[in-house]
Every structure is written in structure tokens, then in C-alpha cells.
């Protein structure tokens, strides 16, 4: 056991002993228990490896953390959860030592607890309404719901206790799934359970969508994603990688010629946006998708073993303030950059990234240059990046979305010397399926339009996740996949 884990574990044991009979703790006592810190790799060590940063609670930490829950009958946490997990019930089970019961409760609503426990923006969802956090006047001090979710889900997986979900007798109906991100994984599982034959078509050579190519190993170990895909296989879902729907075969062909009765489009928001500033095509400028895909999916970090190269850079500027930007910045450090600057137009308060990622990035030494907007990438005579010109910004009046928009201060331009620029300012909807399937309508941003049943304008074709929402979150994608599966199952049963 790592030294920090040992210390935190011993402290949790001692505190549990001191509390005595856990069954009869008064709310006043519960709310005095401090939130358990998440054991993590030391920042200095972890910047030179790809291993997971957060190490997970031990049993004592989980039991003690679970004691903090006040079991509010109004369940503000559940109200904040996009898929409405019965959080007080699952936490009560953890408190009583019934880990299996806890996972079962979560799985009534969520299919990917190991993953969501790690990547959900809890401080903006379940933890936001938590009474314990309200008492502490800080949602970050609420019950650590995500950490508990991760604890019970990891335990079940590591002990090999998961059972393959029961599959109903064959119906003779076939359903095609486009993409294998969280929306598609959830959809495939629920439709397969109803006894339909399911084939997942994935363009890349590995499954998982952003979970595989985007989110780095140090935040979400790929073995966990592979485990979820394996569970689908064990349920009898057929998986075809290296298959682009719209090119290898059109969606209409799948439905009219290849014998599929229905389809789900979960093709995600994988179209990288660029900033539109001069110099963005210089050598050394990358979209975050390219930078992260090289490292994650293609394993370029394993130099000498992987055939895909990564770009050696000493000083890196990352444009953006979301999870993607944090992942790119922290990957750059791990690939050997000496200095990484995060250039963001607004202030830290407006950053869309998860709070934990921002904190981890800072601990690792990423330099935050907020209220700073990129204006130009500077290069040498060989078109190789030598710097990034930025301009200082001030926050102006709130815009239509309520966010205060940054206003550049004229004359405040300066050039930051860097040899690599990573653009992480967002992704738009993947255009391929709508482009090759004219029957499917999209909105002005290229998102597929669906009705209340998650059905597209093409009959029997459902859609969900980022392709419908625009770049959103894993839990929302999963929730949409499940809702679409309910509608699809109803349609195939003749009830919709």
C-alpha cells in the first residue's frame, strides 16, 4: 500500500472506532465528520507516468465517508443526478457494509458506475444540492458521492462479482448501433436485454469513443473501458470495429438491405473546432483530439514501442478551459514538456472543466493564463511554431447565456514563446451520418434533431449522446442511450 493510502486508511479506521455504534449516529455527529481526502499519486511522481492519479478509497474510508450522508428525505442529490440514481439508498448500503446492494442500486439507473464515478462533474450535479455541502457552504465538501460510486463499482469488478445481465429469448429483430461511446454502450446493453440481436459498428479500431481516444489513462484506465465492452460481448452483442457507417455502408443500406429493423446513432461530437486565428496550420499546432488520440488510442506515449509518433515539445500552450484542455495540458507534461501554459479567455470561475481536473492540473504545475485570448500563432521560416501571441481580456457584460464575455484590451498583445500549441476550444457534431443520410434532419449546429422518444426524422432510427446534445457529458450520453433504448424496445414490441 502506498504511504499516503496507509496514513489516510489508519486515520479513517481510528475515526470509525471512535464513533462507536454507527447505527445510532445523530445527524449532528454525522455532519461533523470531515470529508475523506482521495488518496492520489504524488504530483511530482505522477507527471512522469501515465498511471491513474486518484487511487480510490479503502474500505474504512468509504464506510466513514458514507456515514456523512444525512439521508435527506427530499433527496436533493438524486434531483441533481442526470439519471436520477437513488443516491441516499446506495450510500446507506455502503454505510452498512452492503457493497453489492449499493452497486445494484446504482445499476438500476446507471450502467457505467466505474466510469461515471471517475469522470462526472459531481460538484455541478449530485454534490451541488447535498445538504452536507450546504451546511459547509461549499459543494466540494459535500458527501463525496462519486468517490463512493467508484469504490463500490471497482470492488465488484475487481472481485469478479458482476453477473452478465439476463437476456430475454430471441425476438428475431436486429438493431444496428453507430458508434461505441457511452451513449451507444448503454443503448446496446438495454436493447440486447430485450432479446434483440444487436450489432455495434465503430469506425476506430477500439471501442469506447471518447472514453478510449480522448480521456487519458491517468484519469480513466483503459482496462475499465475494455471491461465494459467485454460485458456487452458476453451478453451477445456483436461488435464490428473498423466500420464507418456512411462510408463502409450507408445507414439506409443497413436498414433496407442488411436486415436491420432499427438503428441508433451515437456518433458523438468528434469534429474539432479551431480558433480561426492566423498561423493555425503551422507545424506544431494540434487539435486536442489529435494530440490526445496519438497518446491515448495510439499509445504514442510508449516511445520505442508504438509506431505512432508524438510531437516532442518543450514549451506548450493549450487553448481552452474545459476537460479537454486539462487533459491535453496534463498529457503534454507527461510527454516531457518543461512548461505548459493554459490560455483561457475568461476567469477560473467560468472554466467548464471538472473542479478536480483543475486542481490536479495546478498541482502538476500547469500555468494558468486566464483572461488571455490567443490572436496569432507565430512561426519561423520553416513554418515551425515559435510562439503564441495573446491579448489580455476584461470581463464585460453578461451575454445571452448569462456568462460575462471577455473583451480584449487593445495594445496588450504579447508573444509567449512556445514550440507547440494545442487547440482545445471544443468539438462540433460528427457530420458523416447526417451528410450521408439526407432523411435525418439536423439543427443549425449540425446536431441531429430527435423527438421526445429520441427518434430522428427517419423512422426507426434513434439518436442520443453528443450527436444530439453537442459536446456534453458521459452521464448524459449514457442516460440518452438508455432512454432511446426504451423507445426502441417499445417500437419493436409494437407498442410505440
Amino acid at each position, binding site marked *: 500500500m502506498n504511504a499516503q493510502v496507509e496514513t489516510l486508511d489508519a486515520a479513517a479506521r481510528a475515526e470509525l472506532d471512535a464513533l462507536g455504534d454507527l447505527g445510532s449516529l445523530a445527524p449532528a455527529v454525522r455532519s461533523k465528520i470531515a470529508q475523506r481526502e482521495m488518496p492520489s499519486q504524488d504530483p511530482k511522481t505522477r507527471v512522469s507516468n501515465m498511471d491513474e492519479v486518484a487511487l480510490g478509497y479503502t474500505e474504512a474510508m468509504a464506510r466513514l465517508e458514507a456515514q456523512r450522508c444525512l439521508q435527506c428525505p427530499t433527496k436533493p442529490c438524486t434531483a441533481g443526478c442526470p439519471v436520477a440514481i437513488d443516491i441516499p439508498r446506495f450510500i446507506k448500503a455502503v454505510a452498512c457494509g452492503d457493497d453489492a446492494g449499493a452497486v445494484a442500486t446504482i445499476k438500476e439507473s446507471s450502467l457505467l458506475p466505474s466510469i461515471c464515478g471517475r469522470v462526472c462533474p459531481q460538484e455541478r450535479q449530485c454534490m451541488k444540492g447535498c445538504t452536507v455541502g450546504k451546511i459547509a457552504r461549499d459543494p466540494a465538501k459535500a458527501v463525496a458521492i462519486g468517490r463512493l460510486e467508484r469504490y463500490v463499482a471497482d470492488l465488484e469488478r475487481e472481485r469478479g462479482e458482476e453477473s452478465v445481465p439476463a437476456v430475454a429469448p430471441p425476438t428475431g429483430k436486429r438493431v444496428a448501433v453507430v458508434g461505441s461511446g457511452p451513449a451507444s454502450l448503454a443503448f446496446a446493453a438495454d436493447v440486447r436485454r430485450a432479446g434483440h440481436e444487436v450489432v455495434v459498428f465503430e469506425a476506430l479500431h477500439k471501442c469506447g469513443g471518447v472514453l478510449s481516444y480522448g480521456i487519458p489513462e491517468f484519469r480513466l484506465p483503459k482496462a475499465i473501458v475494455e471491461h465494459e465492452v467485454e460485458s456487452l460481448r458476453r451478453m451477445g452483442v456483436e461488435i464490428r470495429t473498423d466500420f464507418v457507417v456512411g462510408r463502409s455502408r450507408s445507414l439506409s443500406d443497413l436498414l433496407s438491405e442488411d436486415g436491420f429493423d432499427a438503428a441508433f446513432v451515437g456518433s458523438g461530437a468528434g469534429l474539432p473546432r479551431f480558433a480561426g486565428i492566423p498561423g493555425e496550420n503551422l*507545424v506544431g499546432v494540434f*487539435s486536442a483530439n489529435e494530440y490526445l488520440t496519438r497518446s491515448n488510442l495510439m499509445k504514442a506515449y510508449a516511445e520505442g514501442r508504438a509506431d505512432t509518433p508524438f510531437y516532442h515539445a518543450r514549451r506548450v500552450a493549450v487553448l481552452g478551459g474545459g476537460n479537454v484542455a486539462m487533459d491535453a495540458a496534463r498529457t503534454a507534461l507527461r510527454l516531457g514538456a518543461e512548461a505548459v501554459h493554459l490560455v483561457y479567455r475568461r476567469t477560473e470561475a467560468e472554466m467548464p472543466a471538472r473542479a478536480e481536473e483543475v486542481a490536479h492540473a495546478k498541482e502538476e504545475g500547469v500555468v494558468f493564463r486566464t483572461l488571455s485570448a490567443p490572436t496569432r500563432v507565430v512561426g519561423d521560416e520553416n513554418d515551425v511554431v515559435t510562439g503564441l501571441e495573446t491579448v489580455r481580456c476584461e470581463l464585460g457584460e453578461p451575454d445571452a447565456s448569462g456568462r460575462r464575455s471577455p473583451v480584449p484590451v487593445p495594445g496588450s498583445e504579447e508573444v509567449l514563446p512556445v514550440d507547440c500549441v494545442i487547440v482545445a476550444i471544443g468539438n462540433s457534431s460528427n457530420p458523416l451520418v447526417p451528410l450521408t443520410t439526407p432523411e435525418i434532419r439536423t439543427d443549425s449546429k449540425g446536431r441531429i434533431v430527435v423527438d421526445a422518444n429520441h427518434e430522428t426524422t427517419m423512422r426507426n432510427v434513434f439518436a442520443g449522446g453528443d450527436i444530439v446534445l453537442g459536446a456534453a457529458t458521459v452521464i448524459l450520453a449514457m442516460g440518452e442511450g438508455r432512454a432511446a433504448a426504451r423507445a426502441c424496445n417499445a417500437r419493436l414490441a409494437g407498442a410505440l
Partner: protein
Amino acid sequence: MNRIVSKRLLANDLCELEFEAPHIARGHKAGQFLVLQADHDWGERIPLTIADANESAGTVTVVFQAVGATTIKLARFNPGDCIPDVLGPLGNPSDVRKFGRVVLCGGGIGVAPIHPIAQAMRAAGNHVTSILAARTKDLVIFENRMRAASDEVIVCTDDGSYGRKGLVTAPLKEMCESATPPDRVIAIGPPVMMKFCAATTKPFGIPTIVSLNTIMIDGTGMCGGCRVMVGGKMKFVCVDGPDFDGHEVDWDNMMKRMRAFRPFEEEARRRVRDHECNIDKAARAIAAAKEDR
């Protein structure tokens, strides 16, 4: 899946592989390409244009020069082996219509991807002239197939060892100046060759299409690694191309971007080649040991 049915060495390190890929053979159109991997877990993803397809046999053919880590590994596969990952057909099909006189310029292995376009252009009722260019005689590929697919074939070599001596641009320029100039030119080959073909036709205002083969990763529009500037606009070769107006491409920027990973690529190539040498050495040692006995 992707089982190799035949392998031919066209020249020194020019290799032709035909493999089973029924859905690609059925769905592909001239001008489209594939993304291949020679190793599922550690390989890179590289684009190769489809040189031929046989729908009834369900096979497709690619031609490549064994110069990079992946192509060297691919060239080591033999009939019966399966290519670990093949994705396609990708990209937009070439614009094939009746234009009148069409001139196709293929440089080096660029002749292979020209082949299906020649067939399609001929079938669409065009008069097809193909110029096949190579450094030297041994590197002229697909000559017979191109003769079968074209109305007229001109071969040129840099060193004059076969056909006309000189670059592809010389006969191209003559044709542009002739009484019957081409209505459309298509050039596929190394970037410099395409750049100069486009520069040759530009003064004559003859539409010139090039097929770009930039660095790619996913090939599905997800990474932007393949981006080029065309007419001052950013384009992704894998989804917006691979065919573009050669007069509008920012060639210099594209060529510089294609060199971004040069040092690494050389290192990877060395690693793969050394590995090969070691295998050879081991094989020789085993053979010698057997002889000793």
C-alpha cells in the same frame, strides 16, 4: 477478415497486396482510400488509396512503397496472413463525368491510385491520356494495366532509362499548348510532382485535380491532423477530400506539415528494419547450426 490473397513485388521496395474485404470491394468508388494498421495494439494508422477492386472476388488491392514502419511491416505479410485493421472506403469519390479529353499524371506509386480513375473516366466516355512518370525504368509500375485503361500512354523517366527522359510536366505542358488541350487534368504522386503539375496547367486555366495523401490518424474527420489550406480555407483531407483543386492548395505549408514527424519516422523505420535484420541473423544462425550438424 482482410486475408491476403496475393502479394507481388513490383520493384525494389514497391509492393502490391490484394486482400479480402468484400464490403469495401462492393462499395468503393474511384478515388477513395483505406486506413490500415499493421499491428492492432501498437501500430499506426496510415492511409493508402485503393488501386484496384474485384467485386466478384470481394478483394481490393493496394500498392505502397515499404519505407515507413507500417509499410515495411505490411510488406512482410504473406498470402494467407490477415491485415489486422482495415477501414474504408474513406473520402469522397473522384468527380467522374464526361469532360472530353482527360489527362492523368501518375508519379511513382501514384500511378496505382490513378488506375481506377482511368477506368472510370474511360467508362464515362472521356478520351484518356495517361502519363506515367518514375525515377528510373524499374520503378515504372502498372504499365500494362494503364495501357488497357487508357487511350494513350506516355512513359517518362528522370534518367531516360525508359520512355521519354524528363519530368511529367514536359509532356503535360506540350498537351496544354497543343490544338487539343485537356479539359481536365488529374495528378497523383509525390507532393512536389502534384505541385508542379498544377503550376504547369494554371496559366492555361485547365482544371487540375490532385489527390492529397497527408498524415492521417483516424481518417474520419475527428483529429484534424490531415488539414490543409485550400483557397485560403482549412480543409480536412480525409472527409473534405482527398481530391482538391490543385491550383488552390497551399503546397508549401502542406509539405512542411508532412515533415513534422520526420525524425521520429526515421527512428521508427530504423527500429523496424533492425528488427528485421535481427530476425535474418537469427535465421542464418539456425541454418548454420543445422549445417554444422
